[in-house]
């Protein structure tokens, strides 16, 4: 399979602490990269540096062989990022937020109805997001992943605030995404049973 995402000799300092050093990985289409480690071991920082939000001390990330620093725009077009915070405005409704999303990156609102139905949030479309529970807001963040046609999903602790049904839903969505030649990098505490090839990075 073609190698989609790779990191060479990555290292990152946070204040006095050295989070990781000399880290290398290569991820091809259809694979999941699982980043595990205790709290504060730099999982989020690693994901943010893959996305390009945080600068690395040394090393670089490349997408399809091209360093992301050189061609930021085409890499950003291929990435969708899910962080601890939902990334949507609390005062706006679900639809208004997703419509704004189509201005930011290439996303289609065409199949929005079944996406919302599948996520179980179709009846919440008129409510401002701040009225939704944390679990429902997490599902709205998942909606961002589904409407966008980016190939790389970056997910930071996607299972937080989700009930059992929600967590299995996340696993299914990732498997479907990987089946369509996508790639996913995920930071998670819990162990994951998923029927796709998984690479692991253990951070201290």
């Amino acid at each position, binding site marked *: 399979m073609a190698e989609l995402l790779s990191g060479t000799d990555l290292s990152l*300092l946070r*204040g*006095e602490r050295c989070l990781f050093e000399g880290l290398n990985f290569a991820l091809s289409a259809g694979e999941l990269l699982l980043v595990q480690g205790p709290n504060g071991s730099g999982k989020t920082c690693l994901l943010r540096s893959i996305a390009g939000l945080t*600068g690395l001390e040394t090393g670089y990330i490349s997408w399809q062989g091209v360093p992301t620093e050189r061609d930021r725009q085409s890499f950003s077009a291929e990435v969708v990022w899910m962080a601890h915070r939902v990334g949507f405005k609390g005062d706006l409704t679900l639809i208004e937020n997703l419509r704004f999303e189509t201005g930011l990156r290439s996303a289609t609102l065409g199949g929005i109805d079944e996406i919302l139905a599948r996520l179980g949030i179709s009846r919440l479309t008129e409510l401002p997001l701040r009225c939704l529970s944390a679990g429902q807001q997490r599902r709205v963040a998942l909606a961002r992943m589904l409407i966008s046609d980016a190939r790389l999903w970056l997910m930071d602790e996607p299972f937080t605030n989700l009930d059992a049904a929600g967590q299995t839903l996340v696993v299914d969505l990732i498997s479907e995404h990987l089946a369509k030649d996508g790639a996913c990098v995920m930071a998670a505490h819990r162990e994951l049973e998923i029927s796709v090839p998984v690479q692991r990075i253990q951070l201290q």
Partner: protein
Amino acid sequence: MWKFLHKLASPPHFYDLSAKIIPWFSVGALAFIAYGTIAGLFFAPADYQQGDAFRIIYVHVPAAYLSMLAYTAMAVSAGIGLIWRMKLAHAVAAAAAPLGAWFTFLALATGSIWGRPMWGTWWEWGDPRLTSELIMLFLYFGYMALRGAIDDTAKADRASAVLALVGAVNIPIIHFSVEWWSSLHQGPTLVREGGPAIVPAMMYPLLAMIIGFSLLFAALLLARVRSEVLYRERRTHWVRKLLMPSEEST
């Protein structure tokens, strides 16, 4: 030439090299300033209009000149630091700011002391130079305040570099608008544009003082840059070896 610059840019080399250069700059500065002060105070002829008060020019003009020089050094090194991601350049910008603020304050203070006998007031809004210096002082305070508010040095370096560049673009505009603003009041400025007519005997001490102050600025800047470099390289091996020579042998 390029190899020298490259060598200079690597922190350990810079650290040792600057230690050797600073004494030369300090001695040179002392010599020029000594000559300039003595010649300026006692040997230069008094100005026919202002009498001996004009001798303050020998500290006021170099201080104002240094305040500009410091900001230029800050903006240029900030630009280099941002574009080529050189830690040393950010260290120079971080070191130049307090010096620039000190000399801007000095220029303001000597300017208003000079103004007291001339205009009868400590502060004359009509003089565009004083007003521009005051705004420059605020720019320095803004720069240092931003740098102080960010804990992570790398982030503070780059954020303040953006501010220094934005400030640098605005300084000529500020000078121009203050000039225009003061010309609205009373036509040409009270003090003749070039200041008192400068005869050669008055000019040499002034040149000496400007060169002396520039050397002084270079010495002080290098001294401060050394500490900034030491702080930024605090985790490296060469700093460990430098600061703990005794433990190295065990």
